[in-house]
């Protein structure tokens, strides 16, 4: 049992274990903290944002992936992601400040999100849709992309567990209405546009009750 050019067992294994790139963002948390003063009015001093029933909620940034935060800031500035409240603040930032802020917020710890409500039937439906999806309507389970426990997976799939319900809801609706269109390969759009109003309310409510970390 001889073969000529054997690929070494260990060599292939090594290739695998070192191939998971954790791309560190070149930002400085201390500098980010200094720039964050202008963000606090909405995202709060601890970066945990606020759920605002009936109004525009401010998302939690604390503990989100740094690369994801950075991407969003770049896209608010370039106009690829559009929001009237947020855009002016992104416009003020240069590239380094965005990186610094992204690293700063990624290192803050996430608190508890709000907006889940007490409708146990809705929450139970939300849990089912998030964890199992609804394949008959091709709504893929959220965790298939957003990672175990929906706590995020790499730079492209943000954590959505422990985010404010009002914000989650607003984003899903924004995708449906064509107002948010900055997701890579429209991976999120394809799912969001298959959801109905009850689906959206339910997943947002349940996800907000789940731990972010």
């Amino acid at each position, binding site marked *: 049992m001889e073969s000529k050019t054997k*690929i070494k067992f260990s060599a292939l294994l090594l290739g695998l274990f070192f*191939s998971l790139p954790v791309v560190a963002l070149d930002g400085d948390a201390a500098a980010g903290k200094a720039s964050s003063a202008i963000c606090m009015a909405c995202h709060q001093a601890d970066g945990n944002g606020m759920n605002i029933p009936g109004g525009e909620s401010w998302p939690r940034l604390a503990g989100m992936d740094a690369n994801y935060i950075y991407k969003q800031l770049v896209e608010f500035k370039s106009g690829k992601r559009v929001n009237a409240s947020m855009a002016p603040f992104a416009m003020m930032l240069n590239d380094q400040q965005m990186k610094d802020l992204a690293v700063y917020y990624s290192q803050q710890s996430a608190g508890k999100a709000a907006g889940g409500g007490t409708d146990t039937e809705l929450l139970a439906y939300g849990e089912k849709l998030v964890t199992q999806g609804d394949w008959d309507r091709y709504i893929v389970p959220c965790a298939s992309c957003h*990672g175990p426990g929906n706590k995020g997976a790499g730079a492209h799939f943000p954590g959505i567990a422990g985010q404010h319900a009002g914000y989650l809801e607003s984003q899903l609706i924004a995708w*449906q209405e064509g107002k948010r269109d900055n997701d890579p*390969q429209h991976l999120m*759009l394809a799912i969001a546009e298959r959801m109905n109003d009850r689906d959206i309310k339910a997943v947002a409510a349940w996800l907000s009750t789940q731990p972010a970390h």
Partner: protein
Amino acid sequence: MKIKSIALLAGLVLAMSLSTSALAKQELRFPINMPEPKEGQVVHVPPTMDDLEASNLHPELKRTIRRGYDLFMNTQQLRGENVFNDMNCKSCHMGEGRLPFAAPVWRAAIAMPNFRGKNQHVNNLEERIAGCFAFSMNGKPPAYGSDDMIALTSYHQWLAKGLPIFERKNFYGAGYPIEKAPSTPSYDRGKKLYTENCAICHSDDGSGMRVDGTPHFPAVWGDLSYNWGAGISRMHTLAGFIRSNMPLGQPMTMSVQESWDIAEYIDSQERPQEPRFTGDVKDTRAKYLDTFHKHTNYGLEKQGRLLGDHENFGEKDFVKPDNLRPRTFK
């Protein structure tokens, strides 16, 4: 015995257009363009786990089927014992093994026992499942008659509820069908398409993605993917899978040609050795050429490299699981 008719397909694929919200009533940008059933095809809509709960089956049987479902969705719980790569059954049998055009597994529950060309003997449902353990999971099947095997077969048979056994019907959505490639599949085009459409999840080097050490997006090649004997290493099967299932959430968006191009690219990469390895890749290819490898790139030279010419069996420390064995009756 009447099999559910085409009209019931509505429940599975077409219902989407009816149930989306007012907002989304405008044209969907990513409609699910699954093919319509062809004349003479039989549509089976498998029951769900909710249907199971609502049924009057014995509580102990419900527990068994639930355990089978759990193993099917999270097969990683058998890692190191039966599973030696980053796959779950649902990694290829999408949507709980129920989805059309993702080799819905209920077909085997009524088609088996049957003669299989791949191993040249009569297999029952357990052995069919064992095949996916040995090749797709690069592993070792749970023992026949074991608790896990019984749970898995029970789940498969539950999904086949209502279908007559031993009927060889032309089922809608079975396997991973695809038309022939309009032109010769191209590695270079496939590479470009893979980078643009797939690498965000499966990574540039095919290793997929792990989150805190647990498999998240499965590996499409390399040590922790399926091995060279797996059904999906056949070009037409892989191309069919891609066309109807990938990128995740966007079925039927890659054209037939694009699906074949990507399949050519993926099938030109290395993966764990074929469990039926004779010690020589060309010899192994020749031995299983007609029944299998005429459809794979195993033992062919691609990009200046003889594929499968190695003794890397992945994470496992055996070559072929000992419970795969032929039989005949004279």
